[in-house]
């Protein structure tokens, strides 16, 4: 009997606490690439004193979208970070759950660097060479075969004469998404696309599974340490990690261009992408501070050319694009669903 009473009391207790919970703190989920920027803004925002510091979770872009689109109400997050634009599938999910008004903010740009140890010789790759090093299947003499390249010099004589070993982020990460579209998609050779026909869309970004592309998990710090120790190992991650660890690693050039702030901003460095976050309009006014948070994030002080986000590796938007973003943040302009 005791046990039954206890369980009854427990369940009752849960009911009461859930009724009493109204949130007064902004909740942010989403991409691990945007996480460092969002946390810095959140901290500054909290220090300014008027509102509580927002809680930021790093769930990956896909996971964040799923949580964000699961409904309207304080038990669902208010903001989700994304290292790519929202997909039409996700828009549909949002619409299905009643999340109809979404504001899109472009935070800035991020470059993906293909980097290696400082001890290694400088290197330069084209996108096609990178695709050939990483793809599951490639075309050789007009036929599609399983990737036979074991050494960089097998792909092209000008490349270094040692084994291919590349640490790649897991499929859930936004960095991997961006890499797939910017390098694996665009670097995919014409011959392969013609041979594969319809299957090219799936075949191009498929990574090799013979152990030379090493899936490394989301822990970028670990990758940095591994790269520093092994001069023949390459890894790919966001530009901010290169800035934070420039005493250990350096970046390879892509098509002869070294990653730089300016290069990423005007996309002359070939592996650059915009970063986003999305705000649920229905929560503005319900959870206090969302409007002010938007204002802080998109202010010149944060996102501008000399803003504090640039200190930790964000590549600011060009002036025209900044104006558009600032406009949609202050006027709360929805995206088309």
């Amino acid at each position, binding site marked *: 009997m*005791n*046990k039954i009473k*206890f*369980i009854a009391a*427990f369940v009752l207790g*849960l*009911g009461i*606490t*859930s009724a009493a*919970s109204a*949130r007064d*703190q902004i*909740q942010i*989920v989403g991409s691990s690439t945007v*996480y*460092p920027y969002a*946390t*810095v803004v*959140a*901290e500054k925002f*909290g*220090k300014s004193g008027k509102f*509580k*510091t927002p*809680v*930021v*979770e*790093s769930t990956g872009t896909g996971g964040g979208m799923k949580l964000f689109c699961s409904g309207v*109400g*304080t*038990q669902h*997050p208010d903001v989700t970070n994304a290292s790519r634009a929202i997909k039409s599938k996700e828009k549909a999910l949002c619409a299905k759950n009643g999340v109809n008004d979404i504001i899109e903010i472009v935070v800035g740009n991020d470059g993906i660097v293909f980097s290696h140890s*400082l001890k290694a010789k400088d290197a330069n790759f084209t996108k096609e060479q990178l695709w050939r090093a990483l793809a599951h299947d490639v075309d050789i003499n007009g036929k599609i075969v399983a990737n036979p390249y074991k050494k960089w010099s097998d792909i092209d004589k000008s490349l270094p004469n040692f084994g291919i070993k590349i640490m790649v982020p897991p499929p859930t990460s936004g960095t991997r998404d961006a890499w797939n579209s910017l390098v694996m998609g665009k670097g995919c050779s014409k011959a392969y696309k013609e041979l594969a026909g319809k299957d090219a869309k799936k075949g191009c970004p498929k990574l090799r599974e013979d152990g030379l592309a090493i899936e490394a998990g*989301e*822990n*970028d*710090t670990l990758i940095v340490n591994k790269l520093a120790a092994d001069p023949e190992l390459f890894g790919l991650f966001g530009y*901010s*990690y290169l800035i*934070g*660890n*420039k*005493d250990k690693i350096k970046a390879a050039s892509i098509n002869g261009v070294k990653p730089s702030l300016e290069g990423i901003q005007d996309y002359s460095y070939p592996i650059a992408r915009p970063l986003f976050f999305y705000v649920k309009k229905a929560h503005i006014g319900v959870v206090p501070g969302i409007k002010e948070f938007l204002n802080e994030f998109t202010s010149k002080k944060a996102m501008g050319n000399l803003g504090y986000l640039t200190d*930790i*590796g964000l590549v600011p938007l060009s002036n025209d694009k900044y104006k558009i973003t600032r406009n949609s943040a202050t006027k709360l302009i929805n995206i088309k669903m």
Partner: protein
Amino acid sequence: MTKEQRLKKRYSAEKRFKAYGIISVCAALLFVGILVFKVFSEGSGAFVKTAIQLELDLSKEKLNLPEKPTKEDFENIDFYDFAQQHILKIYPAITTKEKKELLTLFSSDFEYEVKDFILSNQNLIGQKVFFKITAASDLDQMHKGNYTRDIPEERRKVSNFQLTIYDFLLKENKISKIFNNYLFSNGDSRNPEIAGIGGAMLGSFFSIIVCLIISFPIALLAAVYLEEFAPKNAFTDFIEININNLAAVPSIVFGLLGLGILLNVFELPRSTSLVGGITLALMTLPRIIIPCRASLKAVPPSIREGALAVGASKVQSVMHHVVPLAMPGTLSGTIIGLAQALGETAPLLLIGMVAFVVQVPGTPMDPSSSLPVQVYLWSESAERGFVEKTSATIMMLLGFLIAMNSIAVYARQKFEKKWI
């Protein structure tokens, strides 16, 4: 083979066996030693911080205060400007770039440090005082020797100009290492020098308390019922098997349960230690029931029979005699179960406790992280200053675990009755 030869063979087999045993123990000790050494050598630095001494001129003109300042006047002081002026006086910086570099040697929080100091020491107004300001993480790391300075400037986090200032301050004896109070009082931060585990410790504390309140009574009652009252039949056997299975279920599964039921059905707030505690309680329940049952079983039947013989009811015999005698065992089982829950990260991942939380939680209903989560979050951060912070958090976590386990062992040895 003669008798002597056989005897010799048996002796040497015995010696070999003993040697294997010693080697295994040594290997285990070596691994523990490496772990502890690595954590301590990396983490011990985090308990001190580098501070730069600054002379503050607290005269009323400098602070822009009237002759008889009111509380409002104090709040209207531009502390940022005041602190900045004093910092810029420490070394001649001419260009804007140099000024910026000089300012970034100090913690991003210098404005608040000066503010707190002045507001809590209003009797010092009008005097000149020395005040220690926390240095920025990059300088801190260099002062502790975690950054080398013998590499070209473009690869260093500290510029040549900043190095000159550093050397100047060192010569003037203005740089010192002091106890890092932020480590224990602050919540998480993106600036390593002001990041602390205060929030995470409180989050862990709240979760463990919630976990204890829920799991201990339920586990004890379940154990008492199963051990003392339940009939032995196929159904109770089935329950017993399931409890043992539940104890072996990976903890992440309980996280999914917490997500599905607590967050989605009951709509409890995400990222709070209340939800964390309940989830951990689900995980800990079977792990406490098992030792509780074992300690109840260890109470000899003569105690029960004696109580029944003088006319006590079944409930009286159990509640007055068996349960109190089994208490040392059940308590130590509970503490060990809670210690396991304290070190758990995986279930917290799914209910949103793996999050960046700056505010130190005041109640279990506030968003918070926990100690193991803090280890995970900091190990992922790009800034170098978090390396030692990560190890320091591991040290604290290990400390709590060792303390809890020692209490369990002590309680068992001190209070346990030996039945001969």
